[in-house]
């Protein structure tokens, strides 16, 4: 069987490529996600707004970026938008991160909106009747509760983004997939480099899902910091 005749030394020879690939993938994903998160929060709140002039632009943006493939967005941003704004390209990193931020924001916005809407109306009514204004009620009552429900889908979005960052390889971002493509083209072998790439992505997403489930536990209703004996400083009267 041909497939058992693996030559892992070719991966080892190109380890620099793969290691650089991991950094590039991580940088793209982290910048894309945190940028997209901040932008997405505003979009989500905007789409939740009753004010028409806030609601419509946000809805339009989300529909636009959720409704077109990320690959197409990457090409448009890298080959058309950035060169026409700056007169020249700013490299794959800037284009890649920009595309991931803009795309991720649309999805995060929907997660935020769904999270807020999932909180019972009575919560807002109760908060308002206690004398909090709309902004205070949102910040002190609704958002803390909604945030807990947003953690799993946000983690999901992060993992999706990590995998989608491989699309930036089309504008020659030297990420993990790029390394695999170069190695496969050099040796005309396809099992080893692509399996290695898959394994690297799997390890990264596995770590991320562990972190997400830790955060989920930390913010769960059952978790009570006062019960934690190693953490006495936190006890509040």
């Amino acid at each position, binding site marked *: 069987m041909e497939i058992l005749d693996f030559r892992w030394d070719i991966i080892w020879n190109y380890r620099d490529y793969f290691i650089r690939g991991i950094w590039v993938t991580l940088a793209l994903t982290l910048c894309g996600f945190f940028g997209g998160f901040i932008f997405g929060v505003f979009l989500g709140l905007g789409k939740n707004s009753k004010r028409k002039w806030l609601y419509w632009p946000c809805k339009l943006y989300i529909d636009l970026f959720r409704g077109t493939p990320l690959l197409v967005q990457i090409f448009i941003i890298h080959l058309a938008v*950035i060169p026409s704004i700056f007169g020249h390209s700013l490299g794959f990193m800037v284009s890649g991160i920009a595309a991931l931020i803009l795309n991720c924001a649309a999805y995060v916005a929907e997660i935020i909106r769904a999270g807020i809407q999932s909180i019972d109306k009575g919560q807002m009514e109760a908060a308002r009747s206690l004398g909090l204004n709309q902004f205070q009620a949102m910040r002190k009552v609704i958002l803390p509760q909604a945030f807990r429900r947003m953690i799993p889908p946000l983690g999901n979005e992060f993992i999706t983004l990590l995998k989608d960052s491989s699309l930036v390889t089309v504008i020659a971002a030297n990420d993990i997939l*790029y390394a695999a493509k170069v190695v496969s083209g050099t040796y005309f072998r396809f099992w080893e480099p692509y399996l290695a790439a898959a394994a690297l992505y799997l390890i990264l997403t596995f770590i991320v899902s562990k972190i997400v489930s830790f955060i989920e536990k930390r913010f769960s209703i059952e978790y009570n910091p006062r019960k934690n004996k190693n953490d006495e400083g936190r006890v509040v009267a």
Partner: protein
Amino acid sequence: MVKRNHVFLLMLLMAFAFVLAACGAGDEKSSGNSDSGESGLKDKKILVGTEATFAPFEYMDDKGNIVGIDKDIIDAIFNELGMDYEMRHVGWEAVFQQVQNGELDMGASGITITNERKETFDFTEPYFEATQVIVVTEDSPIESAKDLEGKKVSVQINSTGHQAAKKLLGETNPNILAYENLPLAIQEVINGTAQAAIGDNAVVYEYLKNNPNAKLKVIEDDAFEKEYYGLMVKKGNKELLDLLNEGLQKIKENGKLAEITGQELE
């Protein structure tokens, strides 16, 4: 709970192993079939793989047909041989992979004959002589291949231009930017992502012909070795290789090849 997880993991692993084993078995079967069917090669429709974004060698016309120099050559060869063929656009890397696993009978995609490729594939006699050229913007200070050091250089991924760039700048140099196709690599010079592109002369000149306002210039450098394009078959597929060489010889002799490529090949 923990135990059940382990059982599940084991099952998953076994399922994966089965799938892998099935793949291996499938491969053996299909290669067996092609062995037994080789005697009827002349009646069979030969599948030719290509990557049709490589004008003027192969590209798509407005109706989606593959056209270009390679297509004309293949057409002439198969006419001489009285055989039937079908040309498919499968993508550059897929050409190599699918010829290797037998999905395609041969590749014709402006493929340069290299020693590395000869380890896995067999090539016909050359049908075209090519050189690598450097493309830079008109106001660029780059004058020769030597000046490329420390500059960002764009190429088509895993093409001979990519190999030339690796030879010049070092195997794993991050300054080499590799794209799916050469037009994209040249576009990146215009956009300023890269300071220079390296690619096959014929394609570069075709690009400049189609984009006369691109403000690019071409640098030819003797540092690049001459290259020859050949038709590619799976290693050991001697029967098809001999037929192709026979056809190629005929169109060389009757002047058809020179007519198509506009180049006398000695």
